[in-house]
């Protein structure tokens, strides 16, 4: 479907997908496997957001180039308050600048037997490294500082599963701080979206938060955009010139 003169058309975006780098995600979620499944499910745009790390983003992007799926690099950062925030970026330089800040404020070493393996893979499904940080842990970054940092690096800051009690902003902080400047709220369960302020606050998105291959694309957001890029996504969230995000 085409809308307006800018050649805006609707596509399906699942902007919160984990890979085998997240200790709690299935090992079979290699960057290549994630991208292929996304293609099979008809997703034109995906966001790769592992816990407190972005090390599988470059491989996912290269797989995406091969398969024709647009990949936005991101990270699901745990704030000091134990609120999960998605940071999505246009360039790897910005993304890895955030990763550096996150790593500096993230203590501990992973215990694979307890939390699971943290595999860094390349686009040919080969294991490159095992990340040894305690990625499941919380950083010491206060929420407002984290959102500010993401914005300084030209990224989008989205409250992950905002309606969920565990690691969601409403559960941890009781209500939405009004001056946070979030670009969107991700809803885990669309049936619970009435808990959040529609119309006044940030726009809603829905994503799968997939930790296993089969769940990829289970939920998605319709984005009406001219091309599948972060800059266009920002315009969708702001509702500029015929662009929109619909859940």
């Amino acid at each position: 479907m085409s809308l307006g003169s800018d050649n805006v058309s609707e596509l399906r975006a699942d902007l919160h997908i984990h890979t085998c780098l997240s200790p709690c995600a299935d090992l079979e979620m290699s960057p290549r496997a994630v991208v292929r499944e996304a293609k099979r499910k008809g997703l034109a745009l995906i966001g790769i957001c592992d816990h407190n790390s972005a090390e599988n983003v470059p491989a996912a992007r290269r797989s995406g180039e091969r398969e024709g799926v647009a990949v936005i690099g991101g990270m699901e950062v745990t704030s000091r308050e134990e609120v999960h925030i998605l940071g999505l970026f246009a360039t790897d330089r910005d993304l890895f600048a955030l990763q550096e800040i996150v790593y500096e404020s993230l203590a501990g070493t992973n215990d694979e037997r307890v939390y699971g393996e943290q595999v860094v893979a390349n686009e040919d499904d080969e294991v490159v490294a095992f990340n040894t940080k305690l990625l499941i842990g919380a950083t010491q970054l206060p929420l407002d500082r984290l959102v500010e940092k993401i914005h300084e690096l030209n990224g989008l800051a989205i409250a992950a599963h905002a309606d969920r009690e565990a690691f969601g902003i409403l559960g941890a902080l009781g209500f939405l701080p009004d001056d946070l400047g979030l670009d969107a709220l991700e809803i885990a369960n669309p049936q619970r979206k009435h808990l959040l302020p529609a119309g006044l606050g940030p726009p809603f998105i829905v994503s799968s938060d997939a930790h296993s291959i089969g769940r990829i694309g289970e939920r998605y957001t319709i984005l009406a955009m001219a091309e599948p890029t972060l800059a266009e996504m920002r315009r969708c969230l702001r509702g500029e010139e015929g662009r929109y995000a619909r859940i």
Partner: protein
Amino acid sequence: MRLKDIVAALGLEVKAGGDLLAREVSGGYAGDMLSDVLAHARKGDLWVTLQTHVNIIAVASTKELAAVILVHKRTPEEVTLRKAEEEKIPILISPLSTYAVVGKLYELGIR
């Protein structure tokens, strides 16, 4: 029991609301999920938490809590301290864990 007696007994550092320590404490609550505290804390409670976000002051104020004790020597954000003075919510700091602080409060008869 008054706040000032609790501050003395537990050796708490007073970060905000130093002029409000004559306030009576009627009970206690411990929790780090603000949604839970909003649902279950009672008026006059002393609240023990590790959260330092400014939202703790809004929660303490709407629930009319006596004061907030931050554990593990957590440092509150500047905006939290400012809001605490505005809303008249004392902020007290302990080096101990939530478990230890609550144990001591219970021994003092705060139940």
